[in-house]
Each structure stands twice: as C-alpha cells, then as structure tokens.
C-alpha cells in the first residue's frame, strides 16, 4: 500500500472540517477525491502533508506512520503536493522556483531534473529567467506541477490543478497528469471538475461535508446516479 489514511478528524478551532475520513492509494494508481466546495478535500491533503494534524486516526505512507512527521520530512519520504491556488513563489524566477522544488536534494546537481521538467513544460524553459508572478495562470499551474516534480515524488497529490483555467488548458493539465502516471508516478487528484477527474481515475472517492460518502472505480462512479445528479449535471 502506498498511502493509507484511517479515521482522520481535522478541526479549524471549533469547526470539524474532516470527519472520520479513511481511504487508500495503491502503488501505480490515479485516485481522485471529488466533492463540492467546502467538502474538506484541501484540508485532507494538508493533513497528509503534515501542515495540519488529525486528532487520532492513522496515516501510513509506504508502510511508515507519518501522522506526526514534520512536513519537510514527509516531502523527503517522497510525498509531494501541488497545493490549491498553485502557491508558486511569485517574487522568484521560474528557475528559482524549480530549485526550491529540488530543495531536498541538498547540493546534488539538479540540471538534469530541470531539463526533464523543461521537456514536459517547454513554456517554462522559454521563461526560465522570468519572475514567476508575471506568468499567466496556465503557466503558473505548469510551474507548480514542475516544481513538485523536481523532488522525484513517489506519490504526487494535486489540489484542483484545473481551477480557473480555460478549457483548453484544463485538457492540457489532465494530459500531463496522465503522462506522469504512465511514467510511473502514483497520483492522488483532488478535483471539482468531476467529469474529467473520473475519466482518468482508476478509483475515486466522493466527499461531502467532511465525510466520504461514495467510493468505487472511476467508471462506476461516473455511471452512478448520485454522482450524475450531484456532480455531472445529469
């Protein structure tokens, strides 16, 4: 098992945002977590990365408990996240953002990794010396993904990578996710764009007001009446 979360309960002060959530991601899968705004998806990912803590419950990554591991150590273990809203370093250049993505590699030569990311995202190569805050929304999303890939993650978590992008760019982002998956990266994808997410997912979970209410293969959920009604406008 690559990632196993059991009975997560996460709070913002008195607000109980994630209520007894359990799920798992196996090696080589694309798993998606879908649900409406405010369902608790981002909070779940923040908890997996160690930025928030669950009261009780278990989180295991590659059979090792990470429930109380420091966030930077979790990245070192191979669990990376592209956060919601991209959160690139807007005052640094494109290249410096990639350098930060490779922070855990200490003083290793990361030029080859950069070249690999540039191959995947040619736009970034053209703009490598540009200040990241001046990139377009689509380019910023590419940078956020490229930056996370610099650490060679075993499991990549993406929080709404299609948010705020034009349809053509959404297609591009999903194509890239499929490519990364083919190249061997396991993926946990959080999305509001349920249709696209279910179309590429091996398995999926539906989250509603802090709880997981449905789960199954991507195909099963795409065909289910509840999902059709609530998320696919059918």
């Amino acid at each position, binding site marked *: 098992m690559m990632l196993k979360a059991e009975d997560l309960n996460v709070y913002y002060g008195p607000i109980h945002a994630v209520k007894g959530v359990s799920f798992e991601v196996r090696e080589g899968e694309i798993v998606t977590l879908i649900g409406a705004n405010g369902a608790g998806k981002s909070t779940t990912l923040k908890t997996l990365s160690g930025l928030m803590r669950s009261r009780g419950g278990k989180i295991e990554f590659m059979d090792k408990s990470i429930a109380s591991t420091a966030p930077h150590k979790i990245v070192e273990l191979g669990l*990376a996240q592209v956060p919601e809203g991209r959160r*690139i370093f807007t005052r640094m250049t494109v290249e410096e953002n990639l350098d930060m993505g490779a922070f855990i590699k200490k003083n290793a030569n990361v030029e080859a990794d950069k070249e690999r990311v540039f191959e995947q995202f040619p736009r970034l190569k053209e703009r490598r010396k540009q200040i990241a805050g001046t990139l377009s929304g689509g380019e910023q999303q590419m940078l956020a993904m490229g930056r996370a890939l610099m650490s060679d993650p075993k499991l990549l978590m993406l929080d709404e990578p299609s948010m705020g992008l034009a349809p053509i760019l959404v297609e591009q982002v999903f194509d890239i996710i499929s490519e990364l998956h083919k190249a061997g990266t396991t993926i946990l994808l959080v999305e509001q764009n349920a249709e696209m997410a279910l179309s590429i997912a091996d398995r999926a979970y539906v989250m509603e007001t802090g709880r997981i209410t449905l789960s199954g293969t991507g195909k099963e959920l795409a065909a289910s009446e509840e999902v059709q009604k609530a998320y696919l406008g059918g």
Partner: protein
Amino acid sequence: MKFLAYLVSGISLGSIYAIIALGYTMVYGIAKMLNFAHGDVIMVGGYISYIAASNLGLPPLISVLLAMAVCTVLGITIEALAYRPLRSAPKLAVLITAIGVSYFLQNSALLIFGANPKAYSPVVSGTLQLFGGQLSVSYVSLLTVACCIVIMVGLTLFTGRTRMGKAMRACSEDKGAAQLMGINVNRTISLTFAIGSALAAVAGALLCSFSPTLMPTTGSMPGIKAFTAAVFGGIGSIPGAFLGGILLGVIESLAKAYISTQLSNSIVFAVLIVILLVRPAGLLGKHTQEKV
C-alpha cells in the same frame, strides 16, 4: 568642506544603522515579527567585545569574532525560547514578548555589568587627513562604511545565489508552500536570527568605537533608529534597509549641523512620515498579502 565632513559622518553613522536595520528587516521578512530585542543584542555584543579586549586582552578582531559567536547563540536561543512557542499566536502577543525580551536583556546587563558606563576602546584608532588636512576622516568611519558594504553585498549574494538563501526568500513569501518543498521553516528562521544577531555584534563594536560609553541601554536608541531606517527603506527589503540606514544617518547628521541638535531626531521622524505618506510600503518595499 564642512558640508563634506558632515556628509561623511552621516554616511558612517548611517552605515551602522544600516547594519542593524539589515537584522531587523531580515527577521521581519521571514518571521513577520518586529524583534524589538534586536537593539539589546547590539549592547550584548558591545559588552562581550569590551570584556574580550579590555579584561582578557584579546586583539580587536578576535574580540569582535567572539562577540559575534556569543550573539549568534543568543539570537538562536531567544528565537527558540521566546518566539517559536508563539509562532501562531496573535501579532500583539509576539510584540509584547519582544519588548519583554528587550527589558530582560537590559536588566541582565545591569545586574552583571552594573550601571556605570564602560569606556570602550575603539577597534581601530587614528584619522586620515584629506585635502591638506581640511577634511579628516577617522579610520573607524572608513571601517564602518567598508563593513556595511561587505555585509550588504554578502547578504545579497547569499539570498540570491545559495540554496539556504533562496529558502529564506521562499519562507518569507509563503511558509506553507516552503514546507511543501521540504524546507524546514524553523531551521530557516533560526538561521535568520543567527545572521541578524551576528551582524548586531558587529554593529555593537562599531557603535561603541564611535561613542565609547557602553551602558545597558546603549542599544535602545540606535535600535529604534535602525528600525525606522528599515521602515524607511521598506521593511523586509535588504537593499531597502541599506538605503534607509544611510539616508537616516545623513539626514540626522545634516539636521544636527544646519538646523538644530535638539530637533534632529524630530526631523528624522518627520521625513519618515512624509516618505510613508507618499510611499506607504517604504522606498523599496512591496505591498504583499500574507498567505495561510
């Protein structure tokens, strides 16, 4: 020629403000807090180099290096014990704690070294005569300006080129995202306090070389002035702290010479207010919103 003399003295005084302001601004940029105890670290640095030179008979350079080492440890300790537990506390609580640390350091110095001023012997002595003796510049002045430039260039290279320096900039912009890159935010903040405090020790030795009376309150006024300089230049900005420090020193020196000694501080703060009215983020500052 008189004007030139005032200008030179303003620039060297400003260089000291700039060195202190760099510590203020780096800590603010990364920990988003005003470390009001920074001025008192200068005073501690002054006492350590004083004892090393006067009581232990060590050469000036070694004394200052020793003071830097002690202040580095002091800065890291203050951050870990007083500020780190308040990382997610309201800003006001952190500010009050910083003021508390400031009094703690002053009172400890009072207890250990007493209230009597110590006569600090300058790290270098003598003056350079220029224009056939019409302009004399002390070697301390020259050393101060040189230190300031070296520190400024060093910090610019460090934050621009090195892995840890870039990590500092990343933390200053978005700590959450920095953690997702595998950056240890606590360690980065520690490093910032270490650098700022080591610089404060250098500033302490230079300051006491200019005005050789060393007391437990020695760091207060220069600390406040340097804080003003950091706001002047745009708090959080390294070139801003440099520019702000030099400007503040020059304004103060010229105001003292041509307007009034008593009013010089008021004039400095009046200029600050005007600058902030025109440029609310300071001369080189950027308006930024913090992300959670």
